[in-house]
């Protein structure tokens, strides 16, 4: 019989998933990181989430910044509630007790204070100062153990904050149930913040690094997508349905349209019609088939203009919320934040048609490009399981005369369907061409087709004889 431990929701977006369900009630944790990493913000965020849930917090400091200075900096954060000070949460300094009575004095004072405050969460800011007061490692162990046991006795969870990285073998590291490290780092010229659960007793936390950011809501953590979605959140139940691409003639070329719940990659050089094809695809949105444009290039206003110029006005669909336009400028982005934002927008509206313009936006956000294949696998598996039909673009250099390259090795394996757009200079004009390279488990045309702009956006020109698309290749497995 597996027991499930009672958990305390951290109130920090993304952190509970990383911790394997939140902090364990009555357990003790070390939150470590250099000054400025966000330890104080994190612990206060957890504290105020506890107060909002009707619980009580004791916040102990040892020679930290003065409390009114702390309140001043916390007052810039949305979770901070000055009204709760002194009742739901009490901040006290025990520095003088440490100086006058040593570690034992602090322990005695804490025992009384935890009970006086009826605290279910104790934050102890300044473990390093206590450590410096200790004469031996055994003193540190005894100190941590005494606080732990007193807190656990009344079901109180403890967060010890410290500004140094504890060694795995250190006294405090061996004593506590969990260790969370906050860190800021540099990749190339950009800085980024990452956290790691270095120890997690009785909890299946998500190992490795997870990026986080600090904003006015405090800390938001972004669990690594391929770790948190190692398995899809819902069971994938594929159906043999097809959805229209919204491009005249393309459904026939693909053997009957886009397989529902599939991922289609549209590759092509700049100006070959990738975004236009996506707009055609989105134009089929309805209340039953909500659509989402998740883009990195055109802001919504320019995208609407582009759609109108194609004869596919999106104004009404956007106003009626059949289409949502989400734009992340191609500046510094956090890979997992993008993915979580995308999935949140999909789940929130039950999106059935998704256009991602383009995958390069994710690639540019990746600090560790080697992750991309597993990242895209997790993302596309989840989209399929959610029943989303996705069209995504990938920009290629001009293909004239050059060998065709797929975006990256292995990426083809996470896609179901592959379309290639291209320009051909015939001498008299530059023609646009489209070819269907792959449709998972389906026959499809194997010819190059002309791609033209009509008054309804893009269209695939059928063969002139009889208007049929000839030569459907034999079905190929994905």
């Amino acid at each position, binding site marked *: 019989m597996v027991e499930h431990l009672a958990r305390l929701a951290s109130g920090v977006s993304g952190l509970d998933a990383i911790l394997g369900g939140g902090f364990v009630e009555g357990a003790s944790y070390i939150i470590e990181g250099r000054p400025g990493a966000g330890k104080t913000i994190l612990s206060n965020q957890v504290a105020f989430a506890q107060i909002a849930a009707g619980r009580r917090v004791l916040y102990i400091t040892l020679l930290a910044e003065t409390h009114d200075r702390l309140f001043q900096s916390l007052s810039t954060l949305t979770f901070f509630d000055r009204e709760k000070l*002194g009742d739901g949460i009490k901040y006290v300094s025990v520095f003088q007790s440490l100086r006058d009575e040593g570690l034992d004095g602090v322990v005695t004072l804490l025992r009384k204070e935890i009970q006086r405050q009826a605290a279910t969460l104790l934050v102890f800011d300044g473990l390093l100062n206590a450590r410096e007061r200790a004469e031996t490692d055994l003193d540190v162990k005894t100190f941590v153990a005494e606080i732990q046991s007193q807190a656990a006795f009344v079901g109180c969870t403890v967060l010890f904050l410290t500004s140094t990285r504890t060694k795995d073998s250190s006294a405090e590291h061996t004593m506590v149930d969990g260790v969370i490290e906050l860190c800021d780092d540099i990749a190339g010229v950009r800085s980024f913040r990452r956290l790691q659960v270095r120890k997690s007793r009785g909890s299946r936390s998500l190992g490795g690094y997870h990026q986080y950011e600090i904003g006015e809501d405090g800390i938001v953590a972004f669990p690594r997508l391929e770790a948190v979605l190692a398995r899809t959140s819902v069971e994938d139940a594929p159906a043999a349905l097809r959805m229209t691409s919204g491009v005249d003639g393309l459904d026939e070329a693909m053997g009957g349209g886009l397989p529902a719940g599939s991922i289609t990659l549209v590759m092509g050089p700049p100006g070959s019609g990738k975004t236009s094809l996506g707009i055609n695809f989105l134009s089929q949105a309805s209340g039953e088939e909500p659509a989402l444009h998740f883009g990195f290039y055109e802001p919504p206003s320019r995208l609407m203009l582009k759609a109108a110029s194609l004869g596919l006005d999106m104004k009404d669909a956007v106003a009626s919320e059949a289409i949502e336009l989400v734009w992340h400028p191609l500046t510094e982005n956090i890979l997992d934040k993008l993915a979580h934002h995308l999935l949140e927008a999909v789940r929130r509206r039950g999106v059935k048609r998704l256009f991602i313009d383009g995958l390069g936006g994710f690639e540019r956000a990746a600090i560790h490009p080697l992750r991309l294949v597993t990242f895209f696998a997790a993302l596309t598996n989840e989209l399929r399981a959610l029943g989303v039909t996705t069209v995504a673009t990938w920009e290629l250099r001009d293909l004239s005369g050059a060998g065709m390259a797929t975006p990256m090795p292995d990426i083809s394996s996470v896609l179901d369907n592959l379309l290639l757009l291209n320009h051909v200079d015939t001498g008299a004009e530059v023609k646009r061409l489209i070819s269907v390279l792959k449709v998972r488990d389906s026959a499809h045309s194997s010819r190059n087709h002309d791609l033209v702009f009509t008054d309804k956006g893009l269209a695939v020109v059928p063969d002139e004889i009889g208007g049929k698309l000839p030569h459907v290749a034999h079905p190929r497995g994905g």
Partner: protein
Amino acid sequence: MALILVADDEFLLADMLANFLRDEGHEVVTAAHGVIALQMIRERRPALVITDFMMPLMTGLELAQAVKADAALDGLPVILVSGAQGSTGREHGELFAEVFDKPYDLQAMLAAINGLLSAG
């Protein structure tokens, strides 16, 4: 020149205020929390008490209530200095002679102290 007790768990603030008052010619004793403060008040009988609100073991409010309840300490003025609970202190006008929000102006504090000492 009077004996003043400063009760504050944050020793940097207690020290800063104590040194300022010493420079002004007063004698000052400090206490790290309400329990010690009350004990020292009974032993040393200061002319005035300045206390923080949030302290371990006994808050500034509890300290003021204990002073009020002790007939032997009748008339001892208590000034509350608080980072967050000035409003709570002001609701208890019967307990506090003055309420200052941290951070406060030292000259204003000095004026209040001198006013209370000369009135006493």
